[in-house]
């Protein structure tokens, strides 16, 4: 069912699509984002330590999580005539080739301002073990002049 501001309730869940992470998907993200940091490319480099952290091998870009959450939000918002307005994330666990990750959201609150209507959403990305790899919060606007697509 397409979301409307009125029919949304705290606790409602948004499920995003699963995403299979591979060396190829990470390399494609390098080419698409122009972020060629060796963290995502160079296994020998990743044998080393970063301060107190050792990743043990290449890792997916944190911003790939961000892009997947954003995709989930826009795919949910566009049919409702709503607009993705804000996304805040932090990365809590590295993602590696072979992982399968999936973003999701839970409606946290609704808010009306002088000129518009807003939905706050807790977002996260989990890996195949159910571990959170990214968490955050999003804000979606439901304008009064809805333009559903």
């Amino acid at each position: 069912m397409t979301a409307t501001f009125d029919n949304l309730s705290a606790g409602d869940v948004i499920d995003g699509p699963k995403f299979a992470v591979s060396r190829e998907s990470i390399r494609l993200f390098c080419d698409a984002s122009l972020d060629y940091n060796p963290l995502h490319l160079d296994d020998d480099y990743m044998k080393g330590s970063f301060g107190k952290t050792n990743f043990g091998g290449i890792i997916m870009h944190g911003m790939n999580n961000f892009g997947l959450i954003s995709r989930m939000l826009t795919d949910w918002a566009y049919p409702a005539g709503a607009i993705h307005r804000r996304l805040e994330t932090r990365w809590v666990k590295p993602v590696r080739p072979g992982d399968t990750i999936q973003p999701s959201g839970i409606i946290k609150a609704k808010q009306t301002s002088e000129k518009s209507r807003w939905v706050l959403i807790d977002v996260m990305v989990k890996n195949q073990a159910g571990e959170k790899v990214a968490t955050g919060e999003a804000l979606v606007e439901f304008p009064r002049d809805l333009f559903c697509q």
Partner: protein
Amino acid sequence: MAEAQTFETDFWKDANLRKVWDDIVPGEPRKTIPYTLTKEAIELYCKSVGETHPIYFDEAYARTTRYGGLIAPPSIHILLMFSCTPADDWMRSPGTVNAGQSWSYNIPARPNDVITLQARALDKFIKRERLFVVHDNVFFNQRGEVICSGRGWTIRPM
């Protein structure tokens, strides 16, 4: 306005030219370069995160929407961050670890927009023996309209 014609994908090259944590001055603007966002670049970005919505690909469909034409996904700023900065920008330093970001979206970027960036480090600090920098960014289109603004936290290589 000169634009970068080629993109250096070897982030080790020019590494010695980049500022380390000690050199970064919060408040000091970063060097940026204008970038023309192409339909092809948008499509490649979409492919990398599995975006399939027709508003990014189908001109006839996009004309029927509130945007009146093709747009880029909001998260296109992930690409813009690297396309609007030069090879000696410290965001390219190998070993830079992204700790988190927050972005606000005003209007979408569109194919053929000439994008400019205003960016700076806003803060730097040490936490649990790690060197952090907070960076602050605003992307504009060719009409000076804000596309999006965002802040990021990175752990700097040591």
